[in-house]
């Protein structure tokens, strides 16, 4: 319940829940086992009950091993024997199970302290239909979409190797489209990295390299993804490295000091027409060069949104009207 606990006012949480409930009935649960820690040693079973009475329950970790141990998701359908589905063994913590489209659920697990693995399960066929690696996967309230950052190895970047390091590609997985529909032509449906539709930076393609790029071409998502309650759009903060000529400086105590090597923009992704190229990406450069702080919360309103950036003395709240977002 990260969003409701920390970021969005209770009222908005209720709106989000109501939106999901309207789509799928009153029995929807969004069970989670996450938030304060990545702590594989102490996770408890979690469960999700669907509106047709189907219950999914995960096996919690009872012993710690240096090696791999598969978690099971036990699927109990009304009037049928329970069936266990073994999930990929590199998942060592299950954070949540989300009701997706059709007979699918999305299981969001972690393979280490930063890297996630999303597993799609068809509960009617008792089988895994797709899986992919990701950073910060955030399902839409209606469970159809999953916004995430495309996977790259979390470490190993140095001056002698991958000199410019990785770039955050913002992706959207659409659970309606299935494995092949979420991969570009030529990419195997078993591929766990080149998955989803790339929506930001604009112009990048799913299978484009996201490591070893020139520094000026790299992008960072600072903070989290925030979905509108109706799942039609989501917002994030994108930080871009500046070319040296664009570096922002200020005069501090009589000296010119470089205060920003980057600029940031709030980015709004409109999924009203989710099939690419129908995805619309808008950008609001409301605090160029100075708002590279993480996006901590967003409140969606009728005509605009209120975003909180940063923590401590750098914390600021900005209000942006939707018509201030323009095509990048």
């Amino acid at each position, binding site marked *: 319940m*990260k969003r409701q606990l*920390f970021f969005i006012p209770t009222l908005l949480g209720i709106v989000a829940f109501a939106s999901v409930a309207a789509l799928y009935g009153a029995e929807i649960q969004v069970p989670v086992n*996450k*938030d*304060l*820690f*990545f*702590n*594989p*040693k102490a996770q408890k079973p979690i469960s999700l009950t669907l509106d047709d009475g189907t219950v999914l329950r995960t096996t919690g970790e009872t012993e*710690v*091993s*240096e*090696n*791999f*141990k598969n978690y099971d998701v036990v699927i109990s359908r009304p009037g049928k024997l329970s069936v266990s589905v073994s999930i990929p*063994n*590199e998942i*060592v*913590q299950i954070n949540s199970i989300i009701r997706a489209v059709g007979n699918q659920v999305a299981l969001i697990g972690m*393979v*280490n*302290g*930063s*890297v996630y693995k999303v597993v799609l399960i068809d509960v009617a066929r008792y089988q895994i239909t797709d899986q992919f*690696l990701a*950073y*910060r996967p955030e399902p839409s309230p209606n469970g159809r979409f999953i916004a995430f*950052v495309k996977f*790259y*190895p*979390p*470490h*190993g*970047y*140095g*001056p*002698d*190797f*991958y000199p410019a*390091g*990785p770039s*955050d590609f913002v992706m959207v997985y659409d659970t309606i489209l299935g494995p092949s529909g979420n991969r570009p032509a030529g990419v195997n449906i078993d591929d766990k990295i080149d998955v989803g539709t790339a929506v930001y930076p604009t112009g990048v393609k799913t299978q*484009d*390299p996201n*490591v*070893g790029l020139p520094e000026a071409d790299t992008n*960072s998502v*600072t*903070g*989290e993804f925030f979905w509108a309650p109706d799942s039609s759009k989501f917002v994030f903060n994108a*930080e871009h490295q500046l070319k040296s000529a664009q570096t922002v400086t200020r005069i501090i105590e009589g000296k010119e000091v*470089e*205060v920003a*090597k*980057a600029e940031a923009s709030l980015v709004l992704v409109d999924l009203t027409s989710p099939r690419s190229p129908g995805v619309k990406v808008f950008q609001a450069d409301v605090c160029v060069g100075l708002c590279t702080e*993480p996006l901590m919360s967003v409140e969606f309103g009728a005509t605009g949104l209120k975003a909180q950036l940063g*923590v*401590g*003395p750098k914390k600021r709240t900005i209000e942006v009207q939707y018509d201030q977002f323009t095509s990048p």
Partner: protein
Amino acid sequence: MKTCSILSLLTMLLLIIVLSASANATTLSANLSVDDAFSLYLSTDKNMLGTFIGSGDTWTATYSYNGIPLTPRVKNYIQVVGTDQYQFIAAFMGDFTLSDTAFAFSNGTQFLETNTSSGWEVYDTVGGNPLVLTLADYYGSALNGSWPWGFRTEISANAYWIWTNHGMDLTSRYFVAEVDLTDPVTITEANLVRNTVTVQLRGASGTWGVLKVTANGMTNNYAAITPTNPVGPGIYTVSFDRLNMPIDTYKSITAEWDIGSPPATTTYSMQTGWWIVKGVIRHSQYNTPLESKCSGSPQQAWVFDSNCNFTKVPHGLNSNFMNQVVINGTGYSTNNGIIKYCPSTWTACCAAQRPKGATDSNAFLEVSIVTGSCNTKLIAGTSVATYPNPHGNTNLTDFLCRDTALLVTSSDTDQAVKTTQDWCKACSGDFRGTQGHIDDYSPSQACSGSLVGDYGNFWTANTKGENR
């Protein structure tokens, strides 16, 4: 009863008046001997003789004076006019002590003995020409106890007989030593890792005032825990309630001792050793897995060097291990050393030279050492990875290479001091309700991530190398 109450009030009032009265004056004690005669003065003007204290004309005797009051709030001078009366040899020896820390000699202390290294100047006459001060060592040693004077028990054993021209200028000489006001407040140390600020308060005995110590941030000042009652001269060590210290960059510490109007203050600049408080930060962990720790079966694999020479691993690599190398970026293989994930989309990863069957998931680059973005060897349990990249970053308020991260527990005790050596791109988010995210390099070599859970959420500050 009423009379009694009035008396009590008067007594309390008197007590308050006594307590708030001005402090006792600093006094000087002196023990000295001159071969052959001297006059001792205390002045506030170096070039004019001041108050006469005493004199002597017997070189075999030591003369002592106590309780000589210094003139408050200004610089004082000890003046000794020495005269040779009976030919060989001329010399002056003594030691001098101040009663409290309101004043200090030029050596920074309250004790001064005669020698040529510090504290004394010599002139041909009062207000006259400066001369070269020497030991009176014409006969050899000039240390207290030397021939022909013998040991003077009243004077420090480390004092020397001094004069000009090694004691052979058989005439009068004017010796002067400065007694200067001390800074009433000095911060001698400020260390967030030890959580201590050491403050030295100097003043005449009886000086009292409330001590306040604050860390000065860019947007706020944060008070240390200090005694609530007035304190006197001495050395005080205070600390901060670190857990409630606001997120900010603290560049200096100010100590204020309220002993008058205006209060005595000093500000201690921390130069580049700033305290950059980040708040409560999520510390996840990463590791380099060991192939032998992995269950699973071997599968075909290749390794290649930086010259794109590919070698097929004879018995393959463990399948789970290869999977973890892709996920973590690096791994320790059993027979091929350290290997790195190297996707073919990057030109340096030898895509064109790959043999048939070699893919991103089973062909790895061999490297000799596990390094972070700072290009230094990662140390398990010590290295941390931060966002933004510490390498090449010039923003001093970010974690830069070699900056230290202080981790403090929820009971305000130090958990660890770690060193910034790597970049955690993913740490730009996934804060899990905290105010940031740092990835700590774990000593675990487990294959599975199940033993590399979060290190914990800790109050964290960048102390810029303090106690590295």
